[in-house]
């Protein structure tokens, strides 16, 4: 009788634990101690991982009133139309020579019979954000942009939300130079544009040491097969933020940067136009110093003399 009682207690205990009582009266193994338990744990982990990977980080990088909107004329004018005397006063702006000569055999990189400048970057990239200001200023001396859009770099990196432009839908025409821009990722890191096979070959070959500090890094400039541009992005980016030495300080607005550009002594003018002057000197070197109005004006000849290609 005592044995029957003990057996009944075991059966009831097995039922309370959720298992079916075995034929011998022993409690069944709970489900979480078997394959179902392991499967449930793996499933939960998988769901969490997938949720993390696919979720957007929300409003900080969401498209806003700026996302690829046309650049206001006042800002574009400030960037593309500085006075000649201001450019001469800025000189290099304290920006070091960014151009590195391609070693060994140099294969011309041309498009439509003109020397080509290739830009490889991304919309999220804070350093690309800084470079575009100087690039637009320089290239506007040789041709005309259309379709430039406003953009900010990612909010989740150094120099967060740097106010800048995007080349995503831009076109450039010039009688002296061809310009190809590839924004390969958008502000959220999603794939955007793809370099052509010809461009990818150049990127794979030269966007690495000794020309770049990081293989396939952004931004990358390649000029007519003669030089790679390693622009001092950190110094320039600092000038576009409230605190030039704090990489996490808040970004100046487009208007604030444009306002600083009119003053040759401002950090914004020295960084942007100093960078632009170096880019201009490089272009003048490969296009036969045309137009003369640009390539003969100070400080371009002095900077061009320092180029090693």
């Amino acid at each position: 009788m005592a044995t029957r009682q003990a057996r009944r207690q075991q059966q009831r205990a097995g039922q309370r634990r959720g298992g079916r009582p075995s034929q011998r009266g022993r409690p069944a193994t709970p489900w979480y101690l078997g394959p179902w338990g392991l499967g449930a744990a793996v499933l939960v982990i998988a769901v969490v991982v997938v949720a993390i990977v696919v979720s957007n980080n929300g409003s900080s990088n969401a498209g806003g009133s700026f996302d690829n909107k046309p650049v206001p004329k006042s800002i574009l004018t400030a960037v593309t139309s500085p006075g000649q005397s201001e450019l001469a006063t800025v000189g290099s702006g304290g920006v070091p020579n960014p151009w590195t000569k391609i070693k060994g055999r140099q294969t011309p990189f041309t498009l439509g019979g003109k020397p080509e400048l290739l830009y490889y970057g991304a919309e999220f990239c804070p350093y690309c954000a800084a470079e575009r200001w100087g690039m637009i200023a320089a290239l506007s001396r040789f041709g005309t942009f259309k379709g430039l859009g406003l953009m900010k770099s990612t909010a989740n990196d150094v120099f967060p939300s740097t106010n800048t432009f995007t080349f995503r839908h831009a076109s450039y025409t010039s009688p002296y130079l061809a310009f190809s821009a590839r924004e390969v990722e958008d502000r959220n890191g999603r794939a955007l544009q793809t370099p052509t096979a010809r461009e990818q070959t150049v990127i794979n070959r030269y966007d690495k040491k000794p020309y770049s500090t990081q293989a396939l890094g952004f931004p990358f400039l390649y000029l007519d097969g003669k030089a790679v541009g390693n622009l001092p992005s950190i110094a320039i980016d600092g000038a576009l933020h409230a605190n030039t030495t704090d990489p996490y300080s808040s970004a100046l607005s487009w208007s604030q940067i444009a306002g600083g550009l009119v003053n040759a002594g401002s950090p914004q003018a020295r960084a942007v136009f100093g960078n632009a002057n170096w880019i201009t000197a490089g272009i003048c070197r490969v296009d036969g110093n045309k137009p003369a109005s640009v390539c003969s004006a100070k400080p371009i000849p002095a900077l061009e003399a320092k180029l090693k290609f």
Partner: protein
Amino acid sequence: MANRSAVRAPERKPARAASEPAEPPAAAGPVVPVWLPWLIMVISVVGIGISAYLTVVHYAKLPLACPTNGIVNCALVTSSPYSVVGTTSIPITVPGIGWFVVSGALAAASLLAASGRLRYSQLRIAGAHLIWAVLGLLFVLYLLSVEALRLHHYCEWCSGVHVLVLITFILALVQWQRLMAARWA
């Protein structure tokens, strides 16, 4: 009258409470396969190796052997503010090395306990290992969320370490399950 003293009443074992698991039956072999803790130890060695490499790269400021291609950018991830412990300059790979060392030690202890050379029960060690693995897994999920939601880039080496932690968790869970199931049987 029968001599009652000659007839002994059957022994009455106290009824076992529902919460008490049965004594484990005499097993025909080890409950936990021997290869399981050995595999965890091998994983720990690999994890220590990768974490040590990332630590050396951090301090020596060497370039990582990792391509930058679209969403993969090891340099960006390993140089971000999230790559160090709090506000210190200690890379998080250092506690990562510590995690793998402890995991490997627990696996070794499980083997010793199974062979009776340790006075702690293998189940207790397996329980501790499972807790340790859960803690590691939670931290991996945190790092993954930082990569996905803050940095928008991933690091191949870091992902390799994360996978090793996940595999360790699965193996630790299986080990604990088998030992617990053996006690329930």
